[in-house]
């Protein structure tokens, strides 16, 4: 394993040989870019083994496929292959009305339907010049941050599963997630496919009982996080498996459009909640955690710390939730015909920037309906992060990016 860059310290890899990073500095227009640069140089010890991981692989989080070329167990080339779940979501969006696309957005990133709803509602509100009521904005923050917790719960659970636990951390995380899903069910009627946001507000007003339940759940949530962190965060095997694995440099991360916790793990403090300040986020006091190494451990810890910050946001939101209508009485949802024009609306989803780009030609259906899927674009650097690591690490790196195939393939 001479070409493994882990010679310096045990379990500590240098930045993988991401030659595609040269794209930043290479002369423009040169044909020697991307894939061709990443060709294998000289595997002087033995043949290379090409392994197709997926689409039916337990750790690819769906029907995702990685064509990995291995030198022993070390990855020298890795090509992601998509499309097994492609259903042309964008075409569906162009053939239905603005309102009828809302339930479809639930099915993009089906672990975080609420934030998809929100991003879409935000984009349509931008397009049609509607404004959500204040109470609705607070409720959006509440459900959105709860969704972030749900998503991160899933992520850390699945990440540990990829790391080889026998489902225990996953089931602990799911135990907590279930409580949130119960609340969502009580509010919206379903556990995952909410169809909750509307242009100009939300569909249902949360009752005081619901809010009280949610508040009690949130207040108890840090206890679970403490136990969870005690469980595995300090575990030596966990540290050895994640620290120094799958490093990502901030320059590459920015250039490759990486967003969300994966970006912040590299040390770039870019959070759309802070930058755009959409909704009522500027009114909340919360911090954006950033990592220094950009490795898998940092990405894991970003999720844990973000959950703690979400708890803080939620507590403020419950405290400050104003009375008033949940949806603008003049809001137009059914038969919405925005003026011709276009709008790009984005929010900080749990996985990164989820955006919707809509072009209206004045009719009831969007002329162009585009989803900016965070986990799809975050996969751009998968190969760069995996090069020089073993198969076992590739699975973990993929898990730490947090992809959902409903969103990647659309």
């Amino acid at each position, binding site marked *: 394993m001479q070409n493994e860059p882990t010679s310096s310290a045990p379990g500590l890899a240098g930045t993988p040989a991401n030659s595609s990073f040269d794209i930043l500095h290479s002369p423009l227009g040169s044909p020697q870019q991307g894939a061709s640069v990443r060709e294998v140089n000289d595997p002087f010890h033995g043949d290379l083994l090409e392994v197709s991981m997926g689409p039916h692989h337990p750790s690819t989080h769906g029907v995702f496929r990685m064509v990995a070329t291995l030198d022993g167990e070390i990855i020298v080339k890795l090509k992601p292959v998509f499309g097994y779940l492609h259903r042309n979501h964008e075409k569906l969006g162009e053939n239905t009305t603005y309102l009828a696309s809302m339930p479809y957005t639930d099915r993009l990133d089906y672990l975080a339907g609420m934030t998809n709803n929100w991003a879409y509602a935000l984009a349509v509100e931008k397009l049609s010049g509607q404004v959500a009521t204040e109470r609705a904005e607070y409720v959006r923050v509440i459900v959105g941050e709860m969704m972030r917790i749900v998503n991160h719960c899933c992520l850390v659970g699945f990440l540990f599963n990829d790391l080889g636990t026998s489902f*225990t951390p996953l089931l*602990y995380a799911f135990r907590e997630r279930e409580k949130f899903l119960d609340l969502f069910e009580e509010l919206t009627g379903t556990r995952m496919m909410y169809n909750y946001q509307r242009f100009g507000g939300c569909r249902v007003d949360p009752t005081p009982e619901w809010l009280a339940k949610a508040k009690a759940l949130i207040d108890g949530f840090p206890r679970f996080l403490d136990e969870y962190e005690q*469980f595995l965060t300090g575990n*030596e095997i*966990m*540290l050895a*498996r994640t620290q120094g694995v799958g490093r990502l440099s901030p320059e590459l991360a920015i250039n490759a459009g990486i967003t969300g916790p994966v970006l912040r793990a590299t040390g770039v403090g870019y959070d759309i909640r802070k930058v755009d300040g959409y909704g009522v986020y500027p009114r909340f006091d919360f911090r954006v955690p950033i*990592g220094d190494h950009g490795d898998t451990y940092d990405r894991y810890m970003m999720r844990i710390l973000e959950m703690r910050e979400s708890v803080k946001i939620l507590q403020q939101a419950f405290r400050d939730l104003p009375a008033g209508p949940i949806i603008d009485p003049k809001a137009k949802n059914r038969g919405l015909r925005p003026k011709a024009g276009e709008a790009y609306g984005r929010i900080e989803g749990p996985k990164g920037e989820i955006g919707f780009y809509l072009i209206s030609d004045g009719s009831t259906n969007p002329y162009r309906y585009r989803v900016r899927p965070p986990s799809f674009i975050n996969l751009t650097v998968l190969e760069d992060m995996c090069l020089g690591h073993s198969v*076992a690490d590739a699975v973990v790196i993929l898990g730490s990016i947090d992809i959902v195939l409903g969103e990647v393939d659309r």
Partner: protein
Amino acid sequence: MTATLERLPLLVRDWITGFFPEPVRWLVSGLLAIVAILAVFGLYFAYLTLAERKFLGRFQNRPGPNRTGPFGLLQPFADAVKALTKEDIVPQAADKLLHFLAPCLVVAFGLISFAVIPFGRYLIPVDLDAAVLYFFAAGVSSELALFMAGWASHNKYSMISAMRALAQLISYELPLLLAVVPVIMLSGTLSTSKIVVAQGGWTFGIIPHWNVLTPWGFAGFFIFMIAAVAETNRSPFDLPEAESELIAGHLTEYSGFKYALFFMAEYFGMSALCGLGVTLFLGGWQAPIDILQVVPSYVWFMVKLSCVIFCLMWVRATLLRLRIDQLTRLAWKFLVPLGLINLGNAAFWHLSADWSGPLQIVRWAISAAVIVIPFVLIGRTLSSGLAPRTYRYAT
């Protein structure tokens, strides 16, 4: 009464062999032992799978299988029926003969290890003089059978898994043996039955003279159990199987009853190795307290064995998998040095056997220090650069 219970298996054997003429009695008695091991450990295996699933469930906040029969007690039989009725698929490109042989061999090698384990005071199938050597020879073969399975499947994942299995075998056989050597040194025999006898006796009637209750024995047991977990490919060392990386490794291309055989072999291997651990370090069939000797010795053996296996399940429920380089690093850079140091430690213990009075305390202190200090130091180098981190927040 106690004596009768203790001798009960022998009485049953004598009663059955009594029906046969004298010249073939040895043969019948041997066959009987095989049948008994197959029956007892077959059933033990069946309920071990159930227990593992139940306990894992409890560790994970769920009840585990409880639909087949009362408390799910018929689950193993339902699983057996399912495995038997499933289609047996052999890949076209597979080496058909080896593909068939591998599961048979893996079970066979798992079973022959039981021959030298003293299950009770009078219950040892074959009382070999070189029983420990025999045991390891048999144990190694089962890893070879895994390699065979991986190779014969003609599948890339299985191939990687087979290579991992071999690397793991070579790495962990050494610490396993190094952990056992002190026991052999101090009891002066390779015979498992004599090693158990050597651990007999109690101080004040309550503190047993088990090897694990000495500093070198504790360290040896610790190394032995880590290596044993690795040898039996159980979590956190289940790299050949690694279902999140290699799908199921060497098991990818197996289905139906052949798959069940691998599963069986894993549990047989685990029971055998844990049985050896119990024999060598936990006093085998010896009762923990003097007065508890009324309970037959084979019961004690099974209780100890089950406790050790429960701990393995506990570990499985908690830990995550190592990577192959970390796995071998752990063996060569941590367990082997510790094992060697422990060897010297045992020698010291042997030489200082006649120290008494206050020297006894010095003896314990030296022996403990000899093992704890290297543990801390080597452990620190092993985990250097790895620590929980603190994080900044963006402004």
